[in-house]
């Protein structure tokens, strides 16, 4: 199970979404899909609408390495989803 950590800007948008949860997934994209199934609409908050791309101001790290949608997850991977510094 991957250990997924979500940004604090995301959790108020979906009822009962925790900051940290375990997800059984093979890739980053697969992990997002698991979250989408439980919290419909969540994919759009992390990925470009209608496009298979992570949003430019959202960064994924898998075991501290910058990750893409197709980055594989090991059973004990840690996934950090970061809202990049932007805005003012």
């Amino acid at each position, binding site marked *: 199970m991957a250990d997924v950590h979500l*940004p604090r*800007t*995301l959790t*108020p*948008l979906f009822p009962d979404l925790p900051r940290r949860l375990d997800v059984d997934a093979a890739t980053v994209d697969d992990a997002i899909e698991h979250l989408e199934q439980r919290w*419909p*609409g969540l994919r*759009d*908050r*992390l990925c*470009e*609408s*209608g*496009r298979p791309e992570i*949003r430019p*101001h*959202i960064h994924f790290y898998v075991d501290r390495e910058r990750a893409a949608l197709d980055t594989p997850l090991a059973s004990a991977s840690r996934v950090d989803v970061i*809202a*990049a510094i*932007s*805005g003012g």
Partner: protein
Amino acid sequence: MSRTLVLIGTRKGCFVLESDADRRDWSVRGPFCESWPVYHAVYDYESGAIFAAAASEWHGSAIWRSSDLGENWTHSSEGLAYEDGRRFSKVSTLASRHGRLLVGAEAPGIFESRDGGETFSLLTTLAGQPGSEGWDDPANQPPGHLGISGIEVHPDDESRFWAIVQGVGLWETADSGATWTPRNRGLRADWPREHEEVGFCVHKLVRADDTRMFQQNHVGMHRTDDGGATWTEITEGLPSEFGFGAAVNPHDRDTFLVVPLDPGHGRTMPEGRAAVWMTRDAGSSWQRSDRGLPQSDAHLGVLRQAMCNDTYDVPGYYFGTSTGQIFASADDGGSWQEIASYLPPISSVHAAVID
């Protein structure tokens, strides 16, 4: 007694100002929508819902909805996407009538929801219209990247509405977006244009009645008396040809309000003296309305969605500034009162009267 709601879209969320029919004492609630930048918030008279078009730098665009006047909110972006690879950067404007919510977006496109903002589908991209060949390219888009920057729906005919493409012009459809007609004849443009019918910078369109509309343009104020088929410039008498906000008296087709701004980089009220300018004769003459507005060191800007009217017998007007103040007139423009002072930069102001 009626309740007066003024919905404020700001760079840090949506706010709700509330008063009674006297419109003297106001409460402020917010920020809502998790403090996302809100480009436009409107009240839907048919459902009693508030809708807010918001676009987060981190989490993208969504339409927020409150069915209890702001106490609780949900959001959805289901269907707010282009399937042809065009980039969906922002929801810019809303129009709610006839049981349908229209959403203007950038890249230019209009989406509709018929289930109260839960799901959306693409209605039109104005594909094939002159100018459309270049307007998806960010290099061709004006600052702000609003795409569809205004939608006005005919009150009696849901299939008929007008849409502004920022920096390109005004269009009308009579068949819910299946076909479009450019409505820019008579407008001025002080720059070269590639197409005869488009290339005009329409900032704001307001409807007086079936035939008369006014618009604040990048270069001048204009009026149409034939539903947009032709336009006549009515700038003479104003201190500036430039501005964004505009409003109408809902009971008098000859009364129209604008906020002239310096046209340079500042885009604030001339000489730091705040004023609304009104015509009561359809633009033949203009009068300055500044009673109650600051008259020194008031370098206030007002954006295109940040001015509106209410619908009382003696109509009220409202405008919000880029520095977070809301000013209101409850006496048809005779005087003004600052009803909120310390909000984030304001993008939109929308008034609703609820019985």
